[in-house]
């Protein structure tokens, strides 16, 4: 290996941002547009949706027809590099616990393929402890964040409808797309079951934004998971934040740069970030007046815990000892089946936008239930683009239903079988709950004392278990879904038989990829890592603007709140710099 030298980047930045997803992208956008010099340290390669294209490909453009690999766990056309299992970057789990950790490794991270479900937290979501005595209240309220949600709506674009629900605040919405056929059926069936169904709220431009001509409107290909290369009509950090902000000339990106530590000086203040280049395996340092962590909840916690110094012996921003703790993911459970009324249906293009056109926000009062916290329901179905797995398992379908009024034996072959495939196409339907787990101190990630990754960086060891609350919530989800399926005349083909033996089909923690809570904010510096400005209590020029800062995560996908909080923290930084406090 020879002598190991640390090379210092000659340029000094106003801000060094670790990570380029929703939190990092927004921070870079706001700071660069305010004239600050910004350096983004990204652990994955550069990626430009305009050049790195999987949109509008046909199934046969993938030799595995869109099947997944460990490099693309969501399939060959999915736009996210990374996965559950990254070569040379292990993580460990305490025995008897479960955690699956998905990591994006590319410019823009997981924003390149996410579901675009863009829900505001409501007033109650910031004050759950006051309502049910569990977890902790946020140090901010809905009123503090509302102006930033409004600005994110205008800047990024979102569709939805004015509903006036107390805890599902309305935004500044573009018009939603009309429901698809199965979604009309779901709406009727769910309404019968007392479940409210409203247009979904996705960050997809059904119309052009009034003051942004760079992003055309959606062309309804339904492929947001591939990122919108041709129209930039959905939100991804590269298309909407980073590349537009690069035009200021104020952003440099260090790609394939794996952050090792946040560097601090004798006064305990951050001076920059050290990283290893995956391209040349050399060690580097980059200096900044502030360091902003946006590496994802767990990576940001890992960085802080690995940044030990005489002034910060327990890791940076961790005198409270909360970094890594309160780790929680959304809950998830699902069922799927077929709608016999849709057999032999007429064909037309119903791709629509990527994902569901309608959804169900949480509709019940937990005071009347045996679990705290709610969930929303996501729906799918219809005549999607065939991919690997398509038409798999006909033998469990074609013996159960009359095909063109004929009784058939399950399985088969030949012309009769081809008729069956045509008959059943587009009749699938399914639904999944995404609920709020309680953030507990005893669910955490920590530095594994025995294991390092290929760069010599100590890795995380997870220690997470679901509580009774989440399991009861999953049970409720399944009961609700069965009722909706029944009302629709649908036949459940999977997910209908789960019970206490498998936690009612509750996904393993981490699997929903909404991890949060590990660097939480709070007013009390003894019980939180950050103050209400996403700023470290112990180190005023360190900020964390990703899911780490969350006190709790509601039953709302967290990206919209990451964007709003990152915008808010970034403007606070600009302000504090002007006042010469930073």
């Amino acid at each position, binding site marked *: 290996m020879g002598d190991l030298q640390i090379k210092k980047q000659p340029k000094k930045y106003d801000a060094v941002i670790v990570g380029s997803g929703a939190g990092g992208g927004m921070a870079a956008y706001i700071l660069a547009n305010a004239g600050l010099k910004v350096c983004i340290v990204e652990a994955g390669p550069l990626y430009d949706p305009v050049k790195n294209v999987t949109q509008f490909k046909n199934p046969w453009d993938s030799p595995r027809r869109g099947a997944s690999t460990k*490099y693309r766990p969501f399939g060959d056309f999915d736009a996210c590099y990374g996965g559950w299992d990254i070569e040379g970057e292990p993580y460990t789990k305490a025995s008897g616990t479960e955690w699956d950790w998905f990591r994006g490794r590319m410019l823009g991270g997981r924003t390149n393929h996410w579901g675009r479900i863009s829900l505001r937290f409501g007033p109650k979501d910031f004050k759950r402890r006051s309502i049910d005595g569990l977890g902790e209240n946020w140090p901010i309220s809905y009123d503090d964040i509302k102006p930033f949600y409004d600005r994110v709506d205008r800047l990024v674009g979102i569709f939805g409808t004015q509903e006036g629900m107390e805890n599902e605040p309305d935004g500044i919405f573009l*018009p939603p797309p009309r429901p698809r056929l199965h979604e009309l059926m779901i709406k009727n069936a769910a309404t019968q079951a007392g479940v409210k169904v409203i247009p979904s709220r996705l960050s997809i431009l059904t119309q052009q934004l009034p003051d942004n001509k760079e992003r055309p409107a959606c062309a309804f290909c339904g492929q947001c998971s591939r990122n919108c290369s041709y129209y930039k009509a959905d939100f991804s950090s590269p298309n909407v934040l980073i590349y537009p902000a690069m035009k200021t000339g104020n952003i440099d990106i260090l790609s394939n740069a794996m952050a090792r530590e946040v560097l601090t000086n004798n006064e305990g203040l951050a001076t920059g970030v050290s990283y290893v280049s995956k391209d040349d395996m050399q060690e580097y340092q980059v200096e900044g007046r502030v360091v902003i962590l946006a590496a994802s909840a767990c990576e940001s916690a890992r960085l802080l815990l690995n940044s030990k110094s005489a002034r910060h012996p327990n890791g940076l921003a961790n005198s409270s000892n909360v970094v890594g703790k309160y780790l929680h993911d959304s809950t998830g459970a699902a069922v799927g089946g077929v709608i016999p009324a849709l057999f032999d249906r007429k064909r037309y293009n119903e791709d629509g936008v990527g994902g569901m056109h309608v959804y169900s926000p949480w509709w019940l009062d937990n005071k009347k239930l045996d679990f705290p916290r709610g969930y929303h329901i996501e729906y799918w179905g219809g005549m999607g683009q*065939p991919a690997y797995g398509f038409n798999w398992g006909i033998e469990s379908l074609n013996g159960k239903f009359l095909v063109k009024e004929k009784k058939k034996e399950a399985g088969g072959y030949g012309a009769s079988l081809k008729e069956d495939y045509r008959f059943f196409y587009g009749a699938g339907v399914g639904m999944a709950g995404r609920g709020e787990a309680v953030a507990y101190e005893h669910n955490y990630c920590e530095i594994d004392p025995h294991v390092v990754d290929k760069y010599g960086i100590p890795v995380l060891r997870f220690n997470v278990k679901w509580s009774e609350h989440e399991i009861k919530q999953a049970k409720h989800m399944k009961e609700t879904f069965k009722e909706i399926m029944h009302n629709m005349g649908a036949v459940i083909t999977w997910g209908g038989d789960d019970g206490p033996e498998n936690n009612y089909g509750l996904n393993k923690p981490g699997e929903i990829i909404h991890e949060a809570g590990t660097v939480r904010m709070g007013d009390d510096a003894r019980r939180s890592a950050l103050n209400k400005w996403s700023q470290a209590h112990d180190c005023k020029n360190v900020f964390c603007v990703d899911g780490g800062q969350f006190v709790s995560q509601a039953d709302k996908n967290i990206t919209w709140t990451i964007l709003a909080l990152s915008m808010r923290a970034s403007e606070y930084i600009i302000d504090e710099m002007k006042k010469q406090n930073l």
Partner: protein
Amino acid sequence: MDRRKSLKLIATGALAGGALAAGCNADDKKADAKKADELKLNLDRYEPELAHEKALAARGKFFTEAEIATITVLADIIIPKDEISGSASDAKVPEFIEYIVKDMPQHQLPMRGGLRWLDMQCLKRYGKSFTACTDQQKIAMVDDIAYPEKVKPELKQGAAFFSLVRNLTATGFYTSEIGVKDIGYAGNAPNKWNGVPDEVLKQYRLAYTEKELKECVKFDA
């Protein structure tokens, strides 16, 4: 000896005979490596992923010629040409199965063992391997394993194998250009979504509410 090699050797044993040497000699390996080097995919790949794809292409074929011949016959029995579309082999389904079984190790043993099971059944019944049987014999054999709910207990392994071949064939066929057209998938093209066509709404006795018509995005026809 690695697992793949030992499987290959077992396969050379009885039935498949002379066809097996193919795909293993040095020239072929060089050709595969060259092909892998020139590998061009019509979709974005990042670095370690592209390296994986090249390594896969350089690895040589998984199935022997005799095995792929059997797969081709089975695939065309499962998806024959009809008045609407072509056959599985028209849609290059055997090539897809070769690739995907190489790509997904979980399919390798069930396919290799299932193919051998099929040949051994035919050998017992007709004194010949499956591909050497007459069309009538082939269909009689397939009829015995194509219906998993009424299969004889002693042929259940054959039904499991046939279901796997049917599923691989169907998924390969309906993700090909011929198959996508057959199934009638009408998307993957820029358009303006105006909701469910009127005649379809009528067919299902459904309608958009006033609220939906007012608040949803609409486009001139």
